[in-house]
């Protein structure tokens, strides 16, 4: 036989002679159809933007909103006497002094941007407050407290006869980040489950990837299960990233530490499985992005606005709440907040979890009936 590359390969057993393939191993196929699509997803810009970048940016913004001290911001006109009174005000930890021109400071006070304008003239401290602002009214207490200290010091009293002992219960301050972070997890999970699945699956249809896979001895359900598992990994990673950022950068409080962390990750996994039903429902019917976009937005946008992602649902009038309270993302956010801030166990969130599951079953039932594997050409 003539020595050719093919003959050599045949000797090495590499030639492509017909030979029955090994029986398909559905588990090995599932592992591959989870891992490789997961890799592809992580390299995809849309997954990164919706799943990681947006929530991280939102969290950072919300974290900074809640970051300012709780005390009053007082304007102090340039030209105030820099005596002991001034120093005492400056040293008082809760008060933030903002020097500036008197006219400008008073304008800002009227606009509610300052809590007061304080001026020092010798032993006299005068405070202007904004009658419309409770925070401004409260600022007089802080200034009064500074004044009391000065008076006591002036009269030589080092240990006052009457003292107020304030003790604090070991509780938590409910800051905006504590409200916003679970909402952002909801946003990320819903985005990954619906936007990711709809546009991801449509891409697989249009790029003929789904068709190419369906020509192999793998069951369609295995392909979908792999997609679902890959998105599950993505959403668990999202939750972990958002939580890590919240805890380490913005002091987000986990009610019971690691137990709460695990609970929140578990909740987001459950959320992903439920919301995935909606993603499959939309992706199974649409043949292109134009067909999918209206339904996708119809399902996601009202939930982003009404389900307590950015602000609590109790700001809505009763008739809106009737709708808002039964949306799947509302159930998710409610359960997630209870786990996050109250350390709720499964028994306490059973009702919203049940609500989610009902929605999920509904979505999967419809998706199973209407799913189309390939675009009708």
């Amino acid at each position: 036989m003539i020595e050719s590359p093919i003959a050599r390969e045949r000797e090495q057993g590499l030639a492509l002679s017909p030979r029955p393939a090994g029986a398909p191993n559905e588990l090995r196929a599932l592992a591959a159809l989870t891992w490789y699509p997961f890799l592809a997803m992580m390299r995809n810009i849309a997954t990164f933007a919706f799943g990681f970048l947006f929530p991280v940016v939102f969290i950072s913004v919300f974290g900074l909103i809640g970051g300012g001290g709780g005390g009053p911001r007082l304007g102090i006109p340039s030209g105030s006497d820099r005596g002991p009174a001034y120093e005492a005000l400056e040293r008082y930890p809760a008060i933030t002094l903002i020097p500036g021109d008197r006219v400008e400071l008073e304008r800002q006070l009227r606009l509610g941007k300052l809590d007061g304008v304080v001026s020092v003239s010798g032993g006299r401290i005068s405070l202007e407050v904004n009658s419309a602002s409770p925070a401004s009214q409260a600022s007089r207490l802080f200034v009064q407290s500074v004044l009391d200290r000065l008076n006591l010091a002036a009269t030589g009293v080092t240990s006052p006869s009457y003292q107020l002992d304030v003790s604090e219960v070991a509780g938590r301050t409910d800051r905006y980040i504590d409200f916003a972070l679970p909402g952002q997890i909801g946003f990320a999970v819903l985005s990954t489950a619906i936007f990711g699945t709809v546009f991801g699956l449509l891409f697989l249809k249009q790029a003929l990837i789904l068709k190419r896979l369906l020509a192999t001895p793998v069951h369609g359900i295995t392909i979908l299960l792999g997609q679902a598992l890959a998105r599950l990994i993505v959403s668990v990673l999202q939750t972990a990233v958002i939580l890590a950022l919240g805890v380490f950068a913005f002091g987000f409080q986990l009610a019971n530490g690691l137990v709460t962390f695990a609970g929140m990750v578990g909740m987001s996994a459950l959320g992903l499985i439920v919301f995935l039903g909606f993603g499959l429902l939309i992706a199974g019917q649409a043949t292109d992005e134009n067909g999918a976009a209206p339904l996708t937005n119809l399902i996601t946008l009202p939930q982003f606005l009404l389900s307590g992602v950015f602000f609590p649902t109790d700001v809505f009038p009763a008739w809106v709440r009737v709708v808002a309270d039964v949306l799947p993302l509302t159930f998710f956010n409610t359960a997630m907040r209870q786990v996050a801030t109250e350390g709720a166990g499964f028994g306490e969130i059973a009702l919203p979890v049940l609500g989610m599951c009902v929605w999920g079953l509904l979505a999967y039932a419809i998706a199973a009936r209407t799913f189309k594997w390939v675009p009708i050409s």
Partner: protein
Amino acid sequence: MWGLATVESCRSISGEPAVSDPLIRVESLRKHFGSVVAVDGISFEVQQGEMFGILGPNGAGKTTTLEIMETLQKPTSGTVTIDGVDVLHDPWAVKSRIGVQLQSSGFYPELSLVQLLEMFAAIYNVHVNPMVVLARFQLEEKASTFYNRLSGGQKQRFSLATTLIHRPQVIFLDEPTTGLDPQARLNLWDLLREVRNEGVTLVVTTHYMEEAEQLCDRIAIMDRGQIIKSGTPRALIEDLLATGFRKPVIRQEATMEDVFLSLTGRALRDD
């Protein structure tokens, strides 16, 4: 377990079925999409080890015919058997006997060639060395390149590689050379001949008559869902000449393709 394995290996060792026994048998195949008739009652056979070409203008029903054989579409009526297995009855047995190259793409753009090969190997439950497969198709330098960064010729070579990963008996190629430059096309022809010479049966659709003439052992010409003529390229030409057809003879000892290839060489350019 052992008994089954022995039966399997016996079947493959005993080798090819009798020459007269076709590998693929298509009978009275019909496919309607609503009122549109895409495939209108065609019958043909493909022999073990041959390269069979399906020619025809756009919309003739080539791709639909191919997709029915590939288990991707169900016929309205008629039967297809591959290696004695009815495609409608046991699509799963058929799927592991065939390899499929679609008209375009079909791969995750964000995965490297090695990753894609590993994914397909797992799906077919075979073990391959991705580098050996890539080397065979002159793609070893592209091992860690993403699929979407390949040139047209490289994509088609890679696609061919994935169709062969599980050593199928037959591969289906839908317009494999459409859009390729002459060098890439010639290169793919060489690869297809190599694959055929190893005993793999090929079913190819194409728009290029030259390709069909050069590559295919037998050809079926389709139009409006029907096979209007079939046979070896030589026989088809003889038949036409027998009708009295004569091409106006222009004495031309070279074609523009010869000019192009002599100027630019036959070496592949897509790296």
